Structure formats: structure tokens, C-alpha cells
């Protein structure tokens, strides 16, 4: 055994050779791990509050590495190959489910449906599948047909100390009866009075109802499923290391505060997307099957936020509340910001932060008191809770034909057509005791006179009065239509297995403004022009069986990919403009792999390389040097993703396995992007594509120097050693995971020539090294990695009636609270408009999230 272990370690460490994939690159059924994986994942993630916090849904039976990482590394929100989730395709009964605007799958769509999502067919990037041309980040097709679920009743009760504390689930699947009917039902409740993070609660109900009828002796089947997951939950805010240190809590949450002695969270998400799916399966003959589905969904997503007007940001983490905004703790030479008074002020604010918990949370009492004060003066609300709404009506039709031509050849083809109307608007949720608010652009007020039409958010209803429930600020629809054709051909040719796939698509997108914004009076109300994109791609995947369990694989793909509507508009909250130079993204991807499989060893090594050009990205934030809230577009970007992945599964005894996994990868920009931004205070554009007016103070913004910026929020280096013992109904697993090279999301405006000039002019003498910018000041901020030990123990017991399984999963047993899962750099300047150094260093204070400390879940499932 020792020898085997040693061999395996040597193999993992020294083999520059490439292990890999599979002699069967077909889509596969889920392993038993999936449910656990899903539970782990949903219990720990933010569920797309900010979708970048999601993980990839990836699984495999052939690849040791891919089969484990999606689940194993989910505590740090691992993304497969660091790809954006839009490259990770999710389908249900063959219907594409990725959001049509962002391209990303919303995990909450299937939240709480753990039993239904066990039934999944998946394919790695260069494996073929029967429902699409496989995505670069993997593809998954959930099967929601009631007749294919495991029959019987199942009750699951779970207790956890994660986002939710309690989960109760009841599932019933009838299986087909003699008349060809099958029924399914599921009800799940998940809730927490207070989740792992202070001030967060969770309340979610999930339902699933399905019926399937087989006709004509199984030749036809119709199935109808409807499900939804109404959820109300509150969220955790990001904070700097300074704030976490002051609060002495890595999970300090600045979003809540005491009101009348109760914890009130300012950020509450309400999410419900009732969905319905009708699927017709037609077994045309023994070798030919046609699946056609019609899917409809109305998503309602609302997320609240505390905002302010005519005042300072009331969040406790507002930079002026931080002690280090008073005294420059970073630079001993900054005498101006290190006086005795500065030090006294640092102490004053330090003492304030640390003397009472209420001091470092939102002070609701003050917000109400202030609003009562402004009422008496006839002024608009100073503090209020607003809500961002993203509602979407989605209709999609998809059809796929699968034909087994002969024993060695298979062909599939399909089409999908979808339409999506995304409604984006902001409402007044709670005026916090204030009487009134007006629908005017307070950013523009001051730049323009009080009676200037340009300060109006809606010229069709100028100076509109905003009361609770009313829309204000912005209101627009994004219309996306997309059609796609695809095909796969799979063949076994002696020892060679290969497939080719192709797809072609057509996308249109358009904005339909519901407010006539004063900054764009002729270009904000009504429909924009329609952008059209033709895209498509081809893919080749192969595996060659060398005999004796050795297989080599190779894959190659190229595609044009329409930009996402979520990045296609320059400043959608204001006007109808598209981003300049909007183009299809060009994506090249390739992979080689080697796999060895014998009675005691299963090993894979893969190396991959992907390259994208014409990448378009979009962000919005407050930018000091423009003294405005801004909408930033980055276009013409090029990115490269490459790395090595390895996995070894050693069967030491029939009950005991040792598994080693690891990846070293990179995922980064390989050129400097074009940059354009619009100021929400004036409606003016700057940067690439716009002629700058000399002397207006803002120029040289054409380029964002983002070369070498890494993909953020996922470890680029990760490794795992796992031990598992499965015998006599017992399951014991222990995994030691190592994460490293976790980058934070970079601030594009801090990587512009003009910003560096302002920095240098403000007395930062380290800005330039000769004629070049000091590389240190544009280095991307990183988070701390580290070890995490996870374990689970479970037992299945067969009873007279049914079976019972008990499972306890503990993540981060050693309570390592220093692993950063991601975060973002601050986009603000460490200098003032009048070119003075600020004591506060925004560039040294990125916002971070940390992986939860020891957390666990106890699951008891009874099947009967």
C-alpha cells in the first residue's frame, strides 16, 4: 500500500505528462456526491446576490479532478478554470437556463430542490452531450421529468450553522403507474433566524410539482413541472481588514443595526421565479428520440439598500468612520496626516468602534431622527431604503433530436429560441420616517441649476414625488431574443473516440426606457436601436485508448459569442446607448489530457488553454477624480486562461480510498482594454471613442492598464488530499484542502494614466519610476489562502420500512478564518480633488470576504 501511495505522489508531483479524460466522452449521470455537493453549496453561498460569488456546477465520472472540485472547493467559491459562470451552461430537460442578460445560471432557480437536481447529465468542456455543444466551463442538463425520479417518499431534516439553520424537505415521487402516469411533489423549507453571519436571516420555501404521462406504450411522453423558490433573506456586506480587526470578527456585517432593540438588516433580498416546463419526449424509433420543451418563467428579484441624500454615507464602514482615515498608518513620512491631532482622532474613532457593538452598526435611531428633522424643514428624505428590481419574463422553446446511427455512431441536433424581457427599476422601499422624496438626480444638482431639466430623472413627470412603493431613479426594460442551432456527431473508430460539434446563433438586444432622463432627453425614453449578433462555434473532442487503461484526450474549440446584454449598454440607468465597438467575443479553447485507470488507481492530468478577444466588461461606481458616480465600460479586452489539473484516486482497500487533487492555473487579461466612462452627474462620456475637450480636467482615459489583472474571487492554485472510508453503511470522509492565489476584483479607474497623474500631483512621489508607472501601485490586490480541513461522517440504516441515513458534514474543522474568498479593491482615490493626500489609503483597504470558520450540517433522511 505504501508503495502505491508513493507512486501516486510521485505521479502527481513529477509527471509533466498529461493524464486525463475518458474513453467515453459522453454525458454522464450524476454520482451520489451531487446531492451533498448541492447542499454544501447552496448552504454556503450568497446565491447570486452578486453573481460573481457563485461557483461552477461541474461534475464528471471520468475525470477525478472534475468530479470532485465543484463540491470540494465550494467553501471558497471555486470556479472551474476561473471562468465566468456564463461559460458554465445549465439546462433543464434540454432547455437552456442561463440568464439571458448576464449569461449566468442563477442558482436560486433550483434552490431547495435537492432531490430533483440529483438527476443530471453533464459533460466536461470537451465531452459531447445530447443537449448542446458543450460549454467551455462544462454543461449540465437536469432531468425534471417526474417519471425519472427515484420513487417513494423521502423526508429530510437538517440542522446547520450556515446561511440557514434548519431545513425540512419532503419529496414524493410515484413512478409510473399502470396507466402511464407519474407524479412528483416536493416541499422544502429553509430558514434561519440568524445565519452564520450576524444580522442575516433566511426564509425560503421551495416547491415542485410535476406530472408525466406516457402515451402509446412509451412512444410519447408529456411531462409538466412547475417549481419555485420564494425566498427572503438578508445579506452580508463587505468590509476592509481594518473594520474586521476593529470588530474582532472576520464575518462582521456592516449592513445591520439595532432598531428598537432588534437587529434590522438594510439589505433584504426577495427572490421568486415561478417556473413551468412542458416537455414532450417522442421516441420516434428505437434509435431516434426527439425531445421538445417549452419553458416559461417570471423572475422577481428585489434587493434593498440603504441610501442617502444631502448627507454622508450612513454605513458604519464609510471610510470617514475608519480610524485610519484620521491618521496615516501606512506612511511615516506623511507628516501632514500624522500630527498629534491626527493621532488623537485615530484613537477617538478606534475607541468608538471598539467600545460597543451598536457603534459599529447602522444607527437607525439617528437615521429616523434626522428624517424627522428634515421633515420639519420641508426637505427631502435624508436616509431611505431603496430597492433594486430585476424582474424578467423568459420564454424558451428547445428541441433536440438524438439518433443512434449504428453501434459506433451517434448524431444529435437541436434548436432553441428564447425571449427575455428584463425589467430593471428602482423603488422607494422605506422612507424611514421621512415625508417625501423627489425623483431628481442629486448627483447632477449643483452641476446644473435647480430648474435645469437635466437634473430630472424623468422629464415626463418632472419633480415627481416619490413615496414608498414608487419607482424612481431609473426604469427600463432590456429585451433579448436569442435563437440557436447546434449539432453533435459522435463516433467510435477503433481505439479512437471522437466527436465534432457546431452551433450557430442569432441574438438581438434592445433597451426600452420608461423614464425620460434629463441627461439624455432624446435618448432615454422608448426603445433604443436593436443590436444584432450572429455567432457560432465549432468544437472537436477526442480520446484515444492506448490500452492497459491508458487514454489520451485532445479537444479544440473556437467560437464567436455574442456579448451579454448586461455589459452591452454604456449607462443603461440613464440612456439607450450601446457600448462603443460592441463585438462578438472570440473564444479559442483547447485541452490535452491523459488518464490511467486500473483496478486500484484512477488518475487524470489535463492541461488547458483558452483565449478570448473582444471581451466587453462593465461596472459602475463612484469615482473621486470625476467627482461623480460613473458607468465604466471596458472593451477590446483579451484574456488567457491556462493551467494544469490533476487528480489521483487510489483504492487502498475495497473500503478505503486516498484521493489527491490539484490545479495550478492562470486567468488574466493579456492586453490593456479600451476604457470609456460616463458621469452620472453630467451625462458626459470620457475616454475611448470620445473626443476629449482639452482643459476640462478629464482626459487620457482611453486605456485601462489592466494587463495581467487576474480573474478574481476564486483560488488559482488549489490542492486537496482526501481520505474516504465507505463500509457497512458507514461513510467517513476527510479532506485537507489548500487554496492559494486568490485575487480581488481590480478597480479599472485606478489603472488609468490620468489617475496616476492626479496621484503624483497629490504628493505621492512613488507614482513614477522613470517614465513608467511604479508597478507596485497597479499590482492587483490579493486575498490570503490557506489550509482547510473538511470532514463528513454518515451512516445508512435499513429499517423494516424504508431506510434512514444520517450524515454530519463539518467544513473547516480547524476553524481557519484567514482564507479570503474574494473581494474588491476600492475605486476611490487616496487624494482629494484639491490634490492633497488623504490620510486614508483606499488602495490599501480592499473589501474582503472570508471563508466561514467551522460550520456544519446534520442531515437525517428517511426514505419509505
Amino acid at each position, binding site marked *: 500500500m505504501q508503495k502505491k501511495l508513493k507512486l501516486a505522489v510521485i505521479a502527481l508531483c513529477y509527471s509533466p505528462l498529461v493524464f486525463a479524460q475518458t474513453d467515453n466522452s459522453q454525458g454522464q449521470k450524476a454520482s451520489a456526491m451531487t446531492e451533498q455537493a448541492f447542499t454544501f453549496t447552496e448552504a454556503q453561498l450568497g446565491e447570486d446576490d452578486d453573481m460573481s460569488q457563485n461557483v461552477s456546477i461541474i461534475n464528471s465520472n471520468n475525470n477525478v479532478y472534475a468530479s470532485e472540485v465543484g463540491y470540494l472547493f465550494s467553501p471558497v467559491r471555486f470556479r472551474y478554470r476561473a471562468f465566468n459562470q456564463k461559460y458554465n451552461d445549465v439546462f433543464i430537460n434540454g432547455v437552456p437556463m442561463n440568464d439571458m442578460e448576464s449569461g449566468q445560471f442563477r442558482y436560486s432557480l433550483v434552490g431547495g430542490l435537492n432531490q430533483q437536481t440529483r438527476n443530471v447529465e453533464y459533460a466536461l468542456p470537451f465531452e459531447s452531450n445530447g443537449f448542446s455543444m458543450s460549454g467551455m466551463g462544462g454543461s449540465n442538463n437536469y432531468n425534471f421529468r417526474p417519471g425519472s425520479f427515484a420513487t417513494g417518499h423521502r423526508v429530510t431534516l437538517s440542522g446547520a450553522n450556515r446561511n440557514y439553520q434548519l431545513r425540512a424537505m419532503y419529496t414524493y415521487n410515484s413512478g409510473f403507474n399502470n396507466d402511464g402516469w407519474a407524479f412528483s411533489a416536493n416541499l422544502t423549507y429553509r430558514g434561519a433566524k440568524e445565519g452564520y453571519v450576524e444580522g442575516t436571516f433566511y426564509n425560503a420555501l421551495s416547491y415542485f410539482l410535476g406530472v408525466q404521462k406516457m402515451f402509446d406504450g412509451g412512444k410519447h411522453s408529456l411531462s409538466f413541472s412547475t417549481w419555485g423558490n420564494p425566498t427572503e433573506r438578508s445579506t452580508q456586506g463587505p468590509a476592509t481588514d481594518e473594520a474586521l480587526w476593529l470588530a474582532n470578527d472576520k464575518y462582521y456585517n456592516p449592513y445591520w443595526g439595532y432598531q428598537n432593540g432588534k437587529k434590522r438588516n438594510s439589505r433584504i433580498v426577495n427572490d421568486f421565479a415561478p417556473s413551468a416546463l412542458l416537455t414532450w419526449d417522442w421516441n420516434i424509433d428505437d434509435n431516434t428520440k426527439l425531445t421538445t420543451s417549452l419553458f416559461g418563467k417570471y423572475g422577481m428579484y428585489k434587493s434593498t439598500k440603504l441610501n442617502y441624500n*444631502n448627507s454622508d454615507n450612513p454605513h458604519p464602514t464609510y471610510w470617514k*468612520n475608519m480610524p485610519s482615515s484620521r491618521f496615516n498608518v501606512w506612511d511615516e513620512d506623511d507628516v501632514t496626516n500624522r500630527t498629534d491631532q491626527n493621532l488623537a482622532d485615530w484613537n477617538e474613532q478606534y475607541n468608538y468602534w471598539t467600545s460597543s457593538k451598536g457603534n459599529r452598526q447602522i444607527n437607525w435611531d*439617528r437615521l429616523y431622527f434626522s428624517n424627522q428633522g428634515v421633515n*420639519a424643514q420641508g426637505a427631502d428624505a435624508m436616509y431611505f431604503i431603496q430597492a433594486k428590481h430585476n424582474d424578467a419574463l423568459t420564454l424558451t422553446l428547445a428541441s433536440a433530436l438524438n439518433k443512434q446511427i449504428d453501434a459506433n455512431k451517434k448524431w444529435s441536433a437541436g434548436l432553441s429560441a428564447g425571449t427575455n424581457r428584463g425589467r430593471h427599476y428602482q423603488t422607494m422601499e422605506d422612507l424611514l420616517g421621512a415625508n417625501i422624496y423627489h425623483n431628481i438626480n442629486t448627483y447632477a444638482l449643483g452641476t446644473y441649476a435647480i430648474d435645469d431639466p437635466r437634473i430630472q430623472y424623468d422629464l415626463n413627470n418632472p419633480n415627481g414625488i416619490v413615496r414608498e412603493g414608487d419607482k424612481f431613479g431609473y426604469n427600463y426594460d432590456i429585451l433579448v431574443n436569442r435563437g440557436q442551432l447546434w449539432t453533435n456527431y459522435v463516433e467510435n473508430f477503433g481505439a479512437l473516440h471522437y466527436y465534432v460539434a457546431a452551433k450557430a446563433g442569432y441574438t438581438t438586444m434592445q433597451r426600452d426606457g420608461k423614464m425620460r432622463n434629463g441627461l439624455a432627453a432624446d435618448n432615454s425614453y422608448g426603445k433604443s436601436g436593436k443590436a444584432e449578433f450572429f455567432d457560432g462555434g465549432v468544437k472537436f473532442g477526442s480520446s484515444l485508448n492506448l490500452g492497459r487503461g491508458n487514454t489520451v484526450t485532445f479537444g479544440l474549440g473556437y467560437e464567436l459569442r455574442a456579448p451579454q446584454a448586461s455589459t452591452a449598454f454604456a449607462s443603461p440607468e440613464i440612456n439607450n446607448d450601446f457600448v462603443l465597438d460592441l463585438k462578438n467575443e472570440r473564444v479559442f479553447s483547447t485541452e490535452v489530457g491523459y488518464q490511467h485507470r486500473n483496478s486500484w488507481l484512477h488518475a487524470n492530468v489535463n492541461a488547458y488553454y483558452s483565449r478570448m478577444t473582444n471581451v466587453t466588461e462593465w461596472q459602475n461606481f463612484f469615482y473621486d477624480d470625476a467627482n461623480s458616480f460613473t458607468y465604466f465600460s471596458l472593451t477590446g479586452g483579451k484574456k488567457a486562461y491556462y493551467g494544469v489539473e490533476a487528480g489521483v484516486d487510489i483504492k487502498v482497500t475495497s473500503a478505503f480510498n486516498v484521493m489527491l487533487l490539484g490545479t495550478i492555473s492562470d486567468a488574466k487579461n493579456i492586453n490593456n482594454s479600451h476604457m470609456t466612462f460616463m458621469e452620472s452627474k453630467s451625462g458626459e462620456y470620457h475616454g475611448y471613442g470620445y473626443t476629449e475637450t482639452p482643459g476640462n480636467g478629464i482626459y487620457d482615459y482611453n486605456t485601462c492598464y489592466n494587463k495581467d489583472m487576474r480573474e478574481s474571487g476564486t483560488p488559482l492554485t488549489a490542492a486537496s488530499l482526501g481520505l474516504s472510508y465507505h463500509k457497512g453503511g458507514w461513510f467517513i470522509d476527510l479532506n485537507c484542502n489548500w487554496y492559494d492565489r486568490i485575487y480581488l476584483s481590480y478597480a479599472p479607474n485606478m489603472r488609468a494614466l490620468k489617475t496616476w497623474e492626479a496621484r503624483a500631483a497629490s504628493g505621492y512621489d512613488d507614482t513614477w519610476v522613470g517614465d513608467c508607472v511604479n508597478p507596485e501601485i497597479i499590482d492587483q490586490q490579493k486575498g490570503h489562502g490557506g489550509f482547510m480541513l473538511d470532514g463528513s461522517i454518515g451512516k445508512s440504516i435499513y429499517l423494516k420500512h424504508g431506510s434512514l441515513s444520517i450524515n454530519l458534514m463539518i467544513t473547516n474543522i480547524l476553524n481557519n478564518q484567514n482564507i479570503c474568498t474574494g473581494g474588491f479593491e476600492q475605486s476611490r482615490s487616496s487624494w482629494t480633488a484639491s490634490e492633497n493626500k488623504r490620510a486614508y489609503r483606499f488602495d490599501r483597504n480592499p473589501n474582503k470576504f472570508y471563508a466561514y470558520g467551522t460550520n456544519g450540517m446534520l442531515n437525517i433522511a428517511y426514505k419509505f
Partner: protein
Amino acid sequence: MKKILYIFMAAACIMFTGCIGGEDIGFDDDWNAPDGSNAPYGDNSIKEENVMSIAAFKEKYEKTITSNGYKLIDEDIKLKGIVTGNDIEGNIYSQIFIQDATGAITICIEQGGLFSYLPEGQEILVSLKDLYIGGYGTQPQIGTLYTNKNGNISVSRMNRVRWQKHFKLLGMKTPVEPEELDITKIGTLDSKKECGKLYTIKNISFRDANGVNIFAMDPETSNVGDAKTQKLLGGCINRNIKENNKFVVRTSQYADFAGMPLPQGKGSITGIMTIYNGTWQMLIRKYEDIKFPENN
């Protein structure tokens, strides 16, 4: 069919027994407003002892003020005054002005939204011990020390946390009536006594008013009217009047009314009269303080 009924019964049971009562945390959609009877701003434990009149206080520190120096207030002195000026429209910023029967003074506070709890007419008690008094162009200011790039020290805004320990809200009073003054009499004002007080200056006309030129802007980025000929001084633009060259209307580029055109003709303006090295600088608190024929 029986089975389906069973499913729904089971489902209903889970629903009703399973839900966690979340009222204590966030499920309340309707949060009751705190009663606000105990002011959440300031230090309610400050006692009304050792109260000095503003005039007496300014006199006590006259030398410091007129020499544009600074001094730590190391004894228990309290002032009691009514707020006359605040940041309601962003022209006065990080400052409030309080006035009693004897005079007025500036208090410098590094915080926005002051007007919400320090509205015009709010009476406050200010505890001065451990704060600084100083002169800024001979205008008396209370705050803490600030050292600029060149090493010059002056009294400037105190940090927000410190301020909360130094005042107590006493209640709303009738707002201070501005004293009226004809611009031709401005030479008769005693700057030591009158600075910081609320005044209405009558019969003035803006030198640059032409219907286009605006109160204030950033000359670097603005092209409105005579913007390019203006100069920002401490973020503000000083506008001259025709009648007297020892009086200017000083407006911040961030004031809500900065973008409004200077009114034409003759009219009156109410605002805080501050002194800056011999020049009277009027700070308009809010746009409605400008009474010109065209505004009526």
C-alpha cells in the same frame, strides 16, 4: 388520488411547523419608528453649568482670534445658542453657526447632513473643554487643529465622533430674526462683535449678473458664462456686488444653487456674515434667502 392528497397534507404540515418566526430579525416589513424622545445625537448628560455668553467668550479669546492663532480651551466653558446656519443646501459645509443674544460663532464639524439634527432654530448647549478656539481670517472658529501641506496650523473641523461628545440638543426655539442692514452702512459694522451673525443685506446688485453667469462652478471644467475668468478659493467663488468692495457673496461650487444664474437688478440677501481679513463674506444658507425682484 389518495396519495396526492397525502402529499399535500404532509406538505402543509411541514410548511406550518417548519417556519421560523423571524419577527425579531428582519421579516418585519413595517418597522416602527423609534420614538426619538431621547435624542440619538449628542451627549444628553452634558449639564447646563458654566455657560458663558458668546460675546464674553469671544472677548476672552480675542487675542487668539484676531491673531489668527489657536488655543486649547482647557476649562469648563459652555455656550448656549440657537443654530442660524447649517449645510442645508450644501453652501455652508462642515460648519454650523450658533447665535445668542450677544453674538455668534462658527463651529467646525467634519460631517455631512448636519442640518437634519441641527436645523435653524435648534437650541444647543456646546461644551468647549478640550476643543480649540482660533481665528480664520479673524473669524472665530471652534474645532480641532489642522495642519496643512505647508505646516501651517489652524482650527478646523473636529471629527464626527468627537463632536457628538460636545453638545446637547436643547429643543426648538423661534429661529433668530436676521438683523437688517443697508449695504451703504456696512462700514459701520463692528466685525469682532457682529461676525458670524445672521443678517439681511438690502439694496445690493451683483456686479456680474447678466442672466448667464452663475453663483459658483469649477472653472476648470465649466464653460458657463464667465466661468473661465473665475478663481476657486477654498472650493468657493466670491461674487462682488456693485455697491461695496468690502462685501462679497461667497458660494461653494457644491452648493445646490451653485448653478443658478446670479439674479439681476437690486434685491436683498439673507445669510451668515463672516469676516475674512477685513472683507465681509456672506454665506447664503439656502436659495430662498435671495430676494430679488426676478425671484418673486
